[in-house]
C-alpha cells in the first residue's frame, strides 16, 4: 500500500488530539500541523522499500510462548498504602473518580 502524503491541518490535529485526550491551544495545533507535515514528508522514503508479502515485525528477539503461573500474590499493607498515597483523589481505601455516566 502506498504511503499517502498527508497534509495535516489544524482541524485534523484537533481530531487526533481528542482521540489522544490532549487539550491543545490553537497555537500548538498550528505549530504541530506544520512540524508533523515535515515529518510525514520524510516518511515517504519508506515507499521505496519493497515490503510485499513481508510479515510486519513487532519484536526483534523472537521469544515465543512466555508463560507464568497465574497466581495471586500478597501485596504488603505498606505497599498498598504507598500506592494509594499517590492517588490524587481517594476516599479511604478507594480511588475517587468523577462520574462516568
Amino acid at each position, binding site marked *: *500500500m*502506498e*504511503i*499517502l502524503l*498527508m497534509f*495535516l491541518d489544524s482541524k485534523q*490535529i484537533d481530531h*487526533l*488530539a481528542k*482521540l*489522544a*485526550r*490532549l*487539550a*491543545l491551544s490553537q497555537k*500548538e495545533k498550528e*505549530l*504541530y500541523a506544520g*512540524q*508533523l507535515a*515535515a*515529518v510525514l514528508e*520524510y*516518511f515517504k*522514503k*519508506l515507499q*521505496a*522499500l519493497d*515490503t510485499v508479502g*513481508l*510479515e*510486519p*515485525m*513487532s*519484536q*526483534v*528477539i523472537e*521469544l515465543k510462548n*512466555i508463560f*507464568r503461573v497465574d497466581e495471586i500474590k500478597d501485596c504488603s499493607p505498606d*505497599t498498598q498504602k*504507598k*500506592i494509594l*498515597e*499517590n*492517588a*490524587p*483523589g481517594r476516599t479511604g481505601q478507594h*480511588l475517587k*473518580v*468523577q*462520574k*462516568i455516566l
Partner: protein
Amino acid sequence: MTELNQLTIEQACVGLRQKEFSSAELVSACLKKIKQVDDELKSFISVFPEHALAAAKKIDQAIAKGDELGPLAGVPYAAKDNFCTKGLKTTAASKILENYLPPYESTTTERLAKAGAVLIGKTNLDEFAMGSSTENSAFFTTKNPHDYSRVAGGTSGGSAAAVAADEVVYALGTDTGGSVRQPAGFCGVVGLKPTYGRTSRAGVIAMASSLDTISHLTKTVADAALVLQALAGRDDHDSTSSNLALDDYSAAMKKSVKGLKVGLPKEYFEVEGMDPEVKKVILSAVKKIEELTETPAVPINLMAPDYALACYYLIMPAEASANLARYDGIKYGLSLVGNDLLDSYLKTRGQGFGPEVKRRIVLGTFALSHGYYDAYYKKACQARALIKKDFAKAFSEVEIILSPVAPTVAFKIGEKSQDPLSLYLADIFTVPMSLAGVPSLSVPCGLVRDLPVGLQMVGKWFDEKTILRLGHHYEQSRK
C-alpha cells in the same frame, strides 16, 4: 593526584577492598563534586546525600567485618530519572510526574543494590526520554562538560554529563534509538546498549516498549563489562527478557582481537549533514583497529540509515502514544479537575505533557488511527523486518560493524530546538541498531574542535562480549 570521584569502577573496587579509602569517602567526594559543578552543569534532578551515605556506611561496615562483598560494592552511581526507585522521587523529567514516589523498585536498580552499588542521585533526561539533547526536560537543560554552551546529547544527557564531569563513577541510562550511545559520544564517555532482551525493562518508565533497552554509561569499557554482568539476565517481571546464558564479559574482553573481522558500511559515511572532520576521526580510528586486528576492515553494504530513521519515527511514537495513555490523573501524577471526566483528562494531559511529548502522541495516534494504520504503522513494521534481515546478512560476513555514533559533535543549546526533523537526524546512525535489536557500544575516539567524537561498534545479537573485547583493546591502544 587523582581525586576519588575520578576513579573508575575497577580502581574504586581495588581501593575499597585494600582499605585505601572508605565508601563513605568515595561517596562524599562525588557529592562534593556535584555541589561544585552541578548548579551550572545541571546533570541531576535529585541528589540523595543521606540515602547514599547511609548505604555507603553499611558497605564500609561489611568491609571492616571482612564480609563477602558484591561486585560493585561501595561504588556510587546515578540512575536516569526514569528508573523507578522505591520512595525516591522519579519524574521522567515531566511535570506530570513531578512529585511521583514509586511504590516499587526497578529490577535494574534492585540488581545493582544487590551488587552493593550505592545510588547517589537521579539524572536529567528529555521528558519521557523523547529527544536528543535533554532540551526537552520539563525542568532544565543539561550542559556538555566540554563546553557549557553545547548540549550533552540525549536523552540520557544527565547521566553522560555526570560521568564525564566525574560527579559519579558510572550511570544508568535507557537507549531507545541512541539515547545512551549519542550522549556518551557527545560527552566523551563509554556507552553500552546491550541486545534488546539482555537487560530487564521492569520498573523503567516505558516509552517505546519494543525498543527501550536498559543501558549504561561508564568511564572505561572494562567498567561497562562489569556493570553489564550485574544487570544482565532473565527477569520474571519482563517477559521480553531473554534466558540465554550470560558470558563472563570481563574475562572475554581480554582475549586477543587478532583476526577479528570488522565491516565498514559505506552508507554510513555518505549521509547528508555529516561533518567531514568527524568522518576523518572515525576513519583514523578504523585504521587503528585494522592494526590491532591485523586484518583489513571489509567494505560491506547496509540499507541506507535514513530508511531506518523514517521507520523509527513511526514505530516509536506509535508505541509511546499507547504507553503514555496511562497518565490520566487518576492513579498518580498531576491531576487537574475539569467539568467532567473527559475534561479532566484533556486538561491533565494537555498541561502535564511538554511540547515534544504531545507532538509524538499526536504523531503516534495518527500512525495508529483508522485509515492510516496500514500505510504507516504496518509499513514501518514491515520495513523493520527488512532492517533486521539486512543486519543478519551483514553479520554473515563480519563479526563487528563500525560506524560513527552521530554525524556531528555536540551542537549548541537552542540550535535545533525549533526544528524537530533536524533534531531527529542526530539519531540517524543509532536507530538502525535499535530497530534490529543488536548490541552497540559507543567508545570515545578523538576530538573535533576540542569536542569528543564517538565510534560505534555493533555486534551480533547477544554477542556483547565481542564488542566489549574490541572496545577494550581499542581503548587501551589510545592510552
